[in-house]
């Protein structure tokens, strides 16, 4: 399909401490022709950018050890990273979502993530 051909040039970073979630999200991205990598926490997400890697899309979990999604998002924005950062979390109170959004997210989706949510995100890149 044409929109999938366009998406084959996109890259994504999946930031989640849960291997199951990383596997599912990376497979979803692959189904849209997006090349992805996965890291286990916010610190690794920051480090990969410090090494010069850049991604069109970052799927950021909130609760992670070492460095959580809020801290990682703030740090990436301070570094000048302009990638689309989408928070993906099972937290659902308005206050928690607001705090995450205020860190610098472009969008937020509640887990479990699905292909419809991903499609709507990719349509805006």
């Amino acid at each position, binding site marked *: 399909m044409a929109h999938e051909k366009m998406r084959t040039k996109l890259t994504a970073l999946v930031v989640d401490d*849960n291997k*199951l*979630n990383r*596997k*599912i999200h990376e*497979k979803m991205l692959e189904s849209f022709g997006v090349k992805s990598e996965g890291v286990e926490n916010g610190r690794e997400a920051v480090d990969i950018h410090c090494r010069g890697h850049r991604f069109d899309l970052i799927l950021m979990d909130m609760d992670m050890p070492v460095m959580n999604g809020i801290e990682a998002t703030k740090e990436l924005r301070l570094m000048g990273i302009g990638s689309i950062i989408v928070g993906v979390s*099972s937290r659902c109170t308005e206050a928690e979502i607001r705090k995450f959004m205020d860190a610098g997210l472009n969008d937020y989706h509640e*887990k*479990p993530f699905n292909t419809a949510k991903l499609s709507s995100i990719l349509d805006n890149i």
Partner: protein
Amino acid sequence: MDKNQSRRQVASMKQSLFDQGLLDEQFIQLEGLQDDANPNFVEEIVTLHYRDSSRLISSIEQALKERNPMDFNKLDTLMHQFKGSSSSIGAKKVKAECNLFREYCRAGNAEGCVRSFQQLKKEYVALRKKLEAYFQLARQVGPQETACRSK
């Protein structure tokens, strides 16, 4: 049993899991990700879930033994992780039991936590057995178009 009959049995088995409220839409999402390169993707994910979640079950059991006082924050955190993993495979009933457990945690109700955890384990084991039987039959039938909407 011929192949078509076996395929119908696989479909019926899967439908039954939805009809009993054991699985939700997320399971369909995972099936939609299966392709020729990963024909057993759903089974891999479910296997990974049961491997990870069994560790969480042990941790929760251990934490429930600590009664003076019971660490409800720790229990809630563990259950949050367990619920997340269960949601990822579409384990609808298990997820509901997780929510109940977390309500008991927030209320500081130790007996409620113990009771709901026993029920949760029953649902967890029951689903695991049914999914094992389902995947075993599905493997015998071979790769097929398995993604279908639940009624």
